Structure formats: structure tokens, C-alpha cells
């Protein structure tokens, strides 16, 4: 019923508009087309000026309404650089925006058709054109310079003390692998992937670096103020690890591993206080269209102190033992049957 009313109102509004439009044309013809055209011209000239003024007020109002809803302080060291670059660019472009938009609408208003004025024949002026080639060129060079400088800082090699985490995207969720005590992620091969046999990543069990790797899903834990290097991959289609609070983003591409690194500045707890939101949590969003669940492909990150992190990691059983309970020393003690020491011999790399 509601829909019907909306459609009816729209149709009616349309009919009225059309009749007015038709009538106004008849009136224009009756009154002398030139005369009414000049009146309309004045009206439109005025509207352009009004649009400029109201538009600028609108820009201000929009900013007042929405500036509190964007992310606030960046939560990583790289994020600080990104935001700085963003605000520098914003300042430069805002000045250009104001100058050019004001000129556009002001000229349109000021130089609207008038019987008193003759258009000024002004086909070119090399000096002017040179000026407005060179000034943008210089400005952009500065922006490019800053941009590339930060870009290389952000995409440069991770520091040696960075911890590593493997992130794997799949339709529609996230998997993480920690390298364990040895600090090295064991080798994997996609044909080994077998969730039923507790090998969701496709780890090669013969590789001893795999023996202490810890596998978790959906929730990643990081250490505050400790650089982290993410080794990113995908199982099925392209995903993207989007970390809005850290201002970081990197595609997860099947078959082509990518990396990114950053240093979280605040723990989740600190962010809860900073944002005043007790439900705050760092989120991982998939930023690359990946299928029907793309919009819900959410992971979370807990940033915590080193002690908290160590305790958390210690509570996790390495995936090697989950997949091969017979190798697990803690299981072996309790079980009498599970002793087949000769199968699955550990091969050195």
C-alpha cells in the first residue's frame, strides 16, 4: 500500500511538473521568447551564485556532522605517516578547491548575459598558461616527494626483530599461523590442505619448522609496540587484509604471497579508553570483492602486552600435535596405545 502511494505521488508530481513545463513554454512564446529567455538567464545566474554559497555552507556542515565519525587517531606508526600525508594533501587540495569553485560560480554569475556587456575577445595568454602549468607542477612534485618518501618507509623491509604472522584469507573468513618458538613459519603446499585431518593451511609435516607453528582462526593476537610482519596469502580467490585503524591494507592473492609490516601503538584496552567505546575491537575487513560473503568477512585483532601475548600463545597447542596426536608429548603420557615412534619420521630441511 505504501509503495502504491509513493508511486502515485511520484506520478502526480511528474504530471504537474510536466504541465508547468509545457505551460511555461507557451507563455514564453506568447510573451516573446527573447524576453523570457533573458529572465530565465538572470534566475539561473542567481541560482549558480546561491549554489556556491549554500554549497560551501553545506561542505562545512557536512564536515561538522561527520568528522567525528571517521577513525580518529591512527593506531600504528605507519598510520601516523598515512594520516599526515592525507592531511597535507587535504590542505593543498582544499585551497585549490575553494579558489577554483569560487571562480567558476562567481564568473558564471558575474558575467551572465547582459545587453550592456560585450564578451572580451581573449583567445590566449602564454604567460598565464605557463604560470598555471608550473604552479601545479611544483605543488604536485612536493606531494609526490612526500608521498614516495613515506611509501618507501612503509613498504620497506620489516625490522629484524619483527614478529611474523601468516594470514590466510578464504571464503569467508581468516586463518592465522604463528611461527612458534623457532620464529620460522614451516613450509606449506596447497595440495596438503585437509581440514578433516587438522591441516587447514597445508603444512608439510616433514618440515621440522612446522612442528611448533600454532594455528588459530578469526582472531589474531599482536604485541603492542612490537613490529609485526604479516605474510599474506589466500586459498581460493583474492581477498584483502584491510586494517582501517592501523591504516594498512594488502591484498591476499592465491599463489602469490604478499607481506606488510607495521607496529601497533595501542593495546585494545587502551583503544577502548581512547575511543570511549567499551566494545571497541580492531577489525580485519576484506577489502577486495571475494563473493557473496564479502561484506561479512570479518576478523578481529587483539593487541596486548608481551606477557599477555606469551600467555595466550602458550595456551595454544601447535597444529602439528593437533594433527598428529601420536607425536604430542602431552598426549603420549596419558595414552598407552598411541606409541608408534617410527611412523612419520622427522626429516631435516
Amino acid at each position, binding site marked *: 500500500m505504501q509503495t502504491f502511494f509513493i508511486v502515485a505521488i511520484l506520478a502526480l508530481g511528474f504530471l504537474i511538473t510536466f504541465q508547468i513545463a509545457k505551460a511555461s513554454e507557451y507563455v514564453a512564446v506568447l510573451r516573446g521568447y527573447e524576453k523570457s529567455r533573458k529572465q530565465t538567464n538572470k534566475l539561473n545566474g542567481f541560482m549558480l551564485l546561491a549554489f556556491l554559497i549554500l554549497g560551501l555552507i553545506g561542505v562545512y556542515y557536512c564536515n561538522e556532522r561527520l568528522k567525528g565519525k571517521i577513525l580518529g587517531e591512527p593506531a600504528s606508526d605507519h598510520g601516523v605517516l598515512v594520516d599526515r600525508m592525507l592531511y597535507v594533501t587535504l590542505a593543498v587540495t582544499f585551497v585549490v*578547491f575553494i579558489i577554483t569553485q569560487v571562480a567558476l560560480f562567481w564568473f558564471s554569475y558575474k558575467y551572465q548575459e547582459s545587453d550592456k556587456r560585450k564578451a572580451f575577445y581573449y583567445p590566449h595568454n602564454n604567460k598565464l598558461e605557463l604560470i598555471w602549468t608550473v604552479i601545479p607542477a611544483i605543488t604536485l612534485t612536493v606531494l609526490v616527494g612526500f608521498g614516495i618518501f613515506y611509501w618507501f618507509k612503509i613498504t620497506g623491509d620489516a625490522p629484524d626483530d619483527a614478529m611474523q604472522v601468516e594470514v590466510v584469507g578464504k571464503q569467508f573468513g581468516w586463518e592465522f599461523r604463528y611461527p612458534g618458538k623457532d620464529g620460522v613459519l614451516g613450509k606449506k603446499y596447497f595440495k596438503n590442505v585437509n581440514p578433516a585431518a587438522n591441516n587447514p593451511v597445508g603444512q608439510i609435516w616433514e618440515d621440522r619448522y612446522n612442528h611448533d607453528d600454532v594455528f588459530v582462526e578469526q582472531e589474531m593476537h599482536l604485541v603492542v609496540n612490537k613490529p609485526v610482519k604479516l605474510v599474506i596469502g589466500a586459498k581460493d580467490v583474492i581477498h584483502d587484509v584491510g586494517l582501517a585503524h592501523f*591504516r594498512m591494507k594488502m591484498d591476499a592473492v592465491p599463489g602469490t604471497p604478499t607481506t606488510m609490516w607495521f607496529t601497533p601503538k595501542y593495546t585494545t584496552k587502551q583503544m577502548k579508553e581512547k575511543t570511549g567505546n567499551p566494545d571497541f575491537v580492531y577489525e580485519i575487513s576484506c577489502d577486495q570483492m571475494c563473493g557473496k560473503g564479502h561484506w561479512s568477512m570479518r576478523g578481529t585483532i587483539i593487541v596486548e602486552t608481551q606477557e599477555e601475548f606469551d600467555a595466550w600463545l602458550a595456551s595454544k597447542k601447535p597444529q602439528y600435535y593437533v594433527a598428529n596426536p601420536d607425536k604430542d608429548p602431552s598426549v603420549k603420557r596419558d595414552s598407552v596405545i598411541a606409541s608408534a615412534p617410527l611412523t612419520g619420521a622427522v626429516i631435516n630441511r
Partner: protein
Amino acid sequence: MSEAMNVHSGVAAAHAVHHDDHGHHHHEQSFISKYVFSMDHKTIGKQFLITGMVWAIIGGLFSVLFRLQLGYPDQSFPILETFFGNWAKGGQIQPEFYYGLVTMHGTVLVFFVLTAGLSGTFANLLIPLQIGARDMASPFLNMLSYWFFFIAGIVMLASIFVHTGPASGGWTMYPPLSALRQAGEGQKIGTDLWLISMALFIVSSLLGGLNYISTILNMRTKGMSMTRLPLPIWAMFFTAVLGVLSFPVLLSGAILLLFDRNLGTSFYLSDIVINGEILPNEGGSAILYQHLFWFLGHPEVYIILLPAMGMVSEILSVNSRKPIFGYMAMLGSLFAIAILAFLVWAHHMFVTGLNPFLGSVFVLLTLLIAVPSAIKVFNWLTTLWRGNIRFTPATLFAIGFVSLFISGGLTGIFLGNSTIDIHLHDTMFVVAHFHIVMGVASFFGMFAGVYHWFPKMFGRYLNNTLGYMHFWVTMIGAYLIFWPMHYQGLAGIPRRYLDKKGWVSFNQFGELDKMITVVSIIVFAVQLMFVFNFFYSIFKGRKVTTPNPWGANTLEWTTKINPGHGNWEGEIPEVHRWPYDYGKDGREFIPQTEPVGANESKH
């Protein structure tokens, strides 16, 4: 058919010797050869325009549907279930339907409306008329170009109605998502149809483009040197060159994708485990497709934008009764944009794991484009300065174009800078940016062109009052829709998220999304009003009574009010000057056909 072809070879011969009367053959044409399989460039232009309008309504309607979901994610619209059945179960748009809508919206508007509908219409209409030619170099290929476009459209339309739905991988159609049937419903037959449709579309675009280039280079009338060409023609020329050089690359990308989908090759596939199934493919690169796609995809942005720029330059100059400021600089900047368009494609790929050094090169080249763009803006502003501006609906849309081009161009400086792009990539900021600068701005150029050349196309005017309403609602609406959308992007909200309730960080814009949805429905309704105005005015509009209603210099206004095939009845006029002598030596305008006087001042 054959009769029509004889007539046209007659036209070509007449052109070669530059004389002959042309009135005799029009009455011989049957309805089919005149309106359906027509080889008259003006009719083909109209065919492109009207087909483009149909597609624009479809594509626009899709956006209204998915805006309903975005604005009112919890509300049920039973009427949707009536129309779309399972796709909108319970009156709510299902995710796969949503992604199908988004994909089709993008594909249809980028390719069918703003490529074919825009340059197909105006290149066909304006090139022969403004350079002084009787028709295109090959009217027959020109006709084929339209019909390939038409068939491409039929295939695309068919894909919307297949059981598993249309392609739904986004208009960029990245593999592996688009390569794997297991990845979703839209990745089944819908994607094959999408690829076939695109291949046909590319054929159409190449036939058209080659024709435009050869016509502009070879068939200019006497005295029409390249530097006397009106700017729309230069813009169409560069557009055609861009298309001819880049569309084949997309074709190759699409064909490899078809192979991967249907023949078991591994161009784009490697190391894939999907739905628990381990695929045998190894060694392919998913990123390869992105390079191929964006090698077209970026020039495509300019394929869309340049014709609009050209027409806006012409319309601003005519209606401010002033020459375009810096004709040579306008040309130079078009040329620079055309060259740079080929050298920036990887700025769409900053976060794909691209080598950072390569990324920095693309940052430099990308931001370089801002320089010719800035030149164009300043030249348009100076064209308006001290003019005597008539605000026809076309002028208003041209002014609107400049405003939108500034706004959208400036946000490009954010995204082209890889450092900022890390945060903004694939967020709503990108959506806002390209809709303003490429979508709405080009639409404004197109509207400006339609209002300006409608008298030439149909011998009647569009209704002005409706035209003004159309402009003001669209202009205000475009800013209301896309300006605040930047803030969603700054907050990091990714594109193509149909519901943000589940997210702590992205759930703060409910009111805004509602506002945008309401405004986009209003704007869409006003576009329907424009379409109505268009068709109504073809038959009932105020008649044009003078051959040159705008007081313009270019050659199309030297033809009859309703020119027949062959355009000029007698000889093709000779050109003696550039097209922008407005307000010179105290005269309001001096047509290109007027010989340069002895005492005339130089420009």
C-alpha cells in the same frame, strides 16, 4: 539493403569530387535502411544515444535497488520479491543479487552508457558534421559497430535472466573469483555471458574507433587543417586512439579468462583450494589479469571523460560568446592526458603486492596527470571570465561538469598517492571519487551535448523548463550523494559492503546511508523526466526555425535544419578560420566558412 548501399557509394563518389546535389535519394530509402540498418552517421549516432539511454535507465535502476539495501538494510520491500522472486526473498535483496546488481551497474554504465552511449553518439553525430564530410570513412563498418554493440547488449541482457544470475564479481571481474564456477552463483554461466558480451562490445568499439580516426584524418573539408578542428573532434580523436590501442588488451585478458574457465588453462590460477576442493592449477598469476584489465581500464576512464571535456569546451565557448581560452593548450593537455593515460594503470594496484619501486613510478606518473587537468580547468575558467554567458541547459551542464571535474579530480590526488591509497584503496572514498569525476561529470558532459545538439539531431528543442529542473536537481543531488560518501571512505568502510551492522568500526553512518538512498531515488526519477522530455520533444518539441540557433561557428550549423544523408545539399563548405572567433572585432560570431577579412585582427 543493396539499394541503400548503392546510394551510399553515390554519396562517397559525390564527396570525392566535392559537388553534386544530394536531395534526390532520401525518398528512396525504406524504413529499414533509414532507421534500422542505417548507414547515415546521424542516425547511427541517434541509435547509440537511444540504446545508451535504455541502458542508463537499467543501470540506474540497479543502483536504486542496491541503494535501497544500503539505506534500509533491515527493511523488507515486498514489491522486490514480487518482481525478483528468490533474488529478493522476503523482500530483502540477497547478497548474490546485490553483487549481481553492483556488477551490472558498473559494467552497463561504464561500457554501454558512458563509452558507447557517449562517444558512440557524439563521435558519430559530430565528426562528419564538424569536419565537413558527407559521412564516415566507412558507413558500413559504422553500421556494424552499432549492431555489434546491440548484440553485446542482448547477450548482457540475457545474462541477467539466466537461472544462476548475472556475473557478480564486480565490473573489474578479477580472477580467480571470476574464473571459478565454484566461487558462487554469479560465477557460473553469467560470467561466460559477460565475457562474450564484452568481446562483442570490444569489436564494436574497435570498428567505431578505427572509423573515427580515419574519418578525422582523411575526410576534412577544404581548409579544415588539424588546428582548425573544433575541440570536440580533437577529443573524439584521442578517445578513439585510446580505445583502439587499449581495448585489444582487454580482449586478450577476457579471452585468457574464458580459457581458464572453460579449457582448463592456468593463466590466472595457482594454488587454489575452494570449498574444500583442491584444484590442479599451478603457476598462473592472478595479478596478470589485473595488469591486462587496467591497461584498458585506466585509458577507459579517459575514453569516458575526453569526449565530455571536448563538448564542454565547445559549449562553454559558444555560450559565453568568447573563444575557448588557450586552444593550443587545450589540445596539448588533451594529448598529454592521452599519453599519460597509458602510463598509470598500476595505480589501481598499489596494494596487490606490487614492487614498491614500481609503485613509486606510478605515483609520479599518476600525479603528473593533474597538471594537464589543471590547465584545462583554468582555461575553462578563463573562458567564462568576461564572457557574456547564456545559461542554456547545455551551458549549465557544462558548468556543472567543470565543478564536478574539479571536485573529483582533487580527490584523485589523494588516491594517486600510494601512501594515502593504502588507507583509502577499495573504500567508499574511491566510489565517491570516480562517481563524481568519471560517472556524474561525464554524464553532465553527455547531457550538455544532448541539450546543445538536440536541435541538430531532431530539428526541435528540448523543453527548457524541464531542462533546468533536470540540471538543478541532478547537480544538487550528485553532491548530496557523493560528497558525504568520502567520509565513509575516510572511516575505512570498504566498497561493496551491503550491510555494516556486524562491524564495530563501520556501523556509524546509518542516517547518512538513508539520506543518500532517498536522494538517489529522487535523482533517478528526474533522469526519467529527462528521458520523457527527450522522447516527447522529438515529436512535440518547439521547432527550430533558424539553421544556427546558438549563433555558433562550427560547420554543423551550416546544414539545413534537418539535414539528409550527405549533410550538405550543395557543395561542402570550405573553411577559412578556426572555430572560436566569438566576440572578435565587435562581431558576435564569425562562422568558420567566412573568409578572413583584410583588416581582421589576428588571434
